[in-house]
Each structure stands twice: as structure tokens, then as C-alpha cells.
């Protein structure tokens, strides 16, 4: 192993995941990471889980404003309008 070309360990890969997803890895590092993924199912799973978590966090925005809150803000708007601020 010591004479092999530089390769990524799993331990190293998990630290590069964010830069990878952000498109911030150098071309070489990106290639090494993707080569690693070709033979390492566990790292594929790790990356996939990260994506699943991110998709889940994106679903946290599914929330709508209550009619009461909306009414309160309309009051704010009407007062501003009346007062000319």
C-alpha cells in the first residue's frame, strides 16, 4: 500500500463530503474521491445518507403562516399606511 499512488481513506473522505457537494474540491481531489466511491459501498452509503438528510432539512420549510399571524401583520401594515411612517 505504501508505494501506491495517493488514495483517499474513508476517514479522509468523510471530511471532504461538504466540499465535494459544494463543488469546491480540486479536480484531483474530486477524481480521487469519485474513484474511492467506485469501490467503497460504505462511503457511497455515507454520501447518500448525507444527501437524504439534506433533502429532509429542505422539507422543514413546509409551514404556512396562520390566519391570526397574518391578521396581526396586516394591522401593522394598516397602521403604517395610516400613519404614513
Amino acid at each position, binding site marked *: *500500500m505504501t508505494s501506491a499512488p495517493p488514495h483517499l481513506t474513508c476517514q479522509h473522505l468523510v471530511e471532504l463530503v461538504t466540499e465535494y457537494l459544494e463543488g469546491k474540491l480540486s479536480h484531483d481531489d474530486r477524481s480521487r474521491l469519485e474513484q474511492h466511491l467506485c469501490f467503497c459501498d460504505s462511503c457511497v452509503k455515507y454520501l447518500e445518507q448525507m444527501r437524504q438528510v*439534506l433533502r429532509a432539512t429542505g422539507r422543514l420549510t413546509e409551514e404556512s403562516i396562520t390566519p391570526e399571524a397574518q391578521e396581526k401583520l396586516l394591522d401593522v401594515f394598516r397602521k*403604517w399606511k395610516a400613519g404614513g411612517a
Partner: protein
Amino acid sequence: MEGPLHSPILALALSPSLACPLGAMFTAASLERRTRPPSGRCSAQPPAKDRGPRFSEAWVELGSEAAGERAGATSALLEALRAGDESAFLHLVNRHQASMIRVATLYVGSRAAAEEVVQEAWVGVLKGLHLFEGRSSLKSWIFRILVNTAKARGIREARSVPLSSLASGDEDEAAVPAERFQEHGVWTGHWSQPPSEWSDDQVASAELVALAREGIEQLPPAQREVMTLRDVEGWEAHDVCELLEVSEANQRVLLHRARSKVRAYVEERLGKEVRP
């Protein structure tokens, strides 16, 4: 109705000099963004008939992120707001309110306090409308006012901690604990305890969403701020850096630690670690 403009922080937020550098935001779609389902943020609009007088449809374009910040649409919306058009205001509120409350919650102690902060911010937005020059996006201008209002409130509540002091000090924090990797031999650094198996049902369930929320809530403040803005609110890195005044590298480190911890939290809670 009084107060916010007398706050030096809000006055600063409203000043054109701060608003300018926030321009050119919300443009390129990130990798994450593309993998996410369509946002439901615009679905809460009330029926048009309840929204007062109708006017140019141009500003409705703001509902679409791609077309979102077109100058023409923004100026039509501003014109309507300044003219006191309630439907224009409601459009803005429905678009940003939920997101504003989540962001405000990052700085103040409770949901109730966050709602007050958001209301205060809207007052500031309305009072400062005549100062908005349209050189930054309206959204970034609104959120700048919100964050400054929330920070001022957070300082009063002694909850705010400077971001810079939190960004360092834990450099050695690993995404995955070292003991889950081989420590000796040819496979040093490779998994000894690989990621656990998540079933399709778990991944598709509301449980995953709930766990992700819990995971984010348990993050240290700076990491929670960055991950909330990036991954919950869908902001671009550049916009988060501007709003929080951190470097891009710092932002990425915070995001990396946050995401790693949230994945680890979800894994732990799903409780099915695979042992070799």
C-alpha cells in the same frame, strides 16, 4: 409602531450603504438546491379575492425563484407597497414569514420572541421602504433588517454569542469518530463500523425530517445558523457569508461540522448501527 427606527442597529440596517453590497444575490443554483423537492413556501397565499385591490401581475413573478429578483418585478412590488397595497404586502409576508421566524429563532429564546422580532422587523421594513434603493435584492434587505433586529433582541436576552468566537476552538472535531475506522494494518483509515443501514421507509418517513430538525436544534449556535440558512432555507453560500459576515471558508467549515453532526444524530437515533 414606534421604536425600531430609533434603534441604532436597525437604522444601520436600513442605510443604503449596507444594502448595496448585498446585491447580486440568489442567483446560481447550488448542488444541494437541485436535489431538493420543490419548496412549499409559496403555497400559503390566501385566495386573491381576499387580498384587496389587484394590480400589475409583474411582481407575482417574485414567487418564482428563477425569475425572482427581476428588477422590474421588484420595482412593481415596491411601488405597490409604497402605495399601501395590502395584497403586495401579503405576498411578501407569505413568501418570507415562516423563514423569517425560523431565522429569528436562531437569535432569541423562544418562538414567541421570534414572532415579536419578525413583527418588529416588518415595521422596520415598512418604515425603511423609502430608503431601499433596489440595488440589493429585496429579500436580502429584509433579512438584514430581521437579523439586526433579532441580534439586538438577542443581546438584550444575553443569548447572542459572537459568531467568530464559535468558529474556532474545535478544529479537531471529526465528522465521524476515529474509532469507527481501522486503526492498524493495510486498511487503516477505512471503515471498521460502516454507516448503518437506513430502510427506504425510514428515509421516506416524516421521522427523518423530525430527526433532522432535532439534530439541527442541538448544534452549537454558529453551526446551527449556517446549516439553517443553507439547508433549511436554501440560501447560497455567498448570501450566508454576507449576512453572517463570515468568510466562505469559515462558512464551509461550520456547514461541514453541522451536517456531519446532524447525519450522525439521525444515524444514532435510527439506532441500527451495523457492526462488522
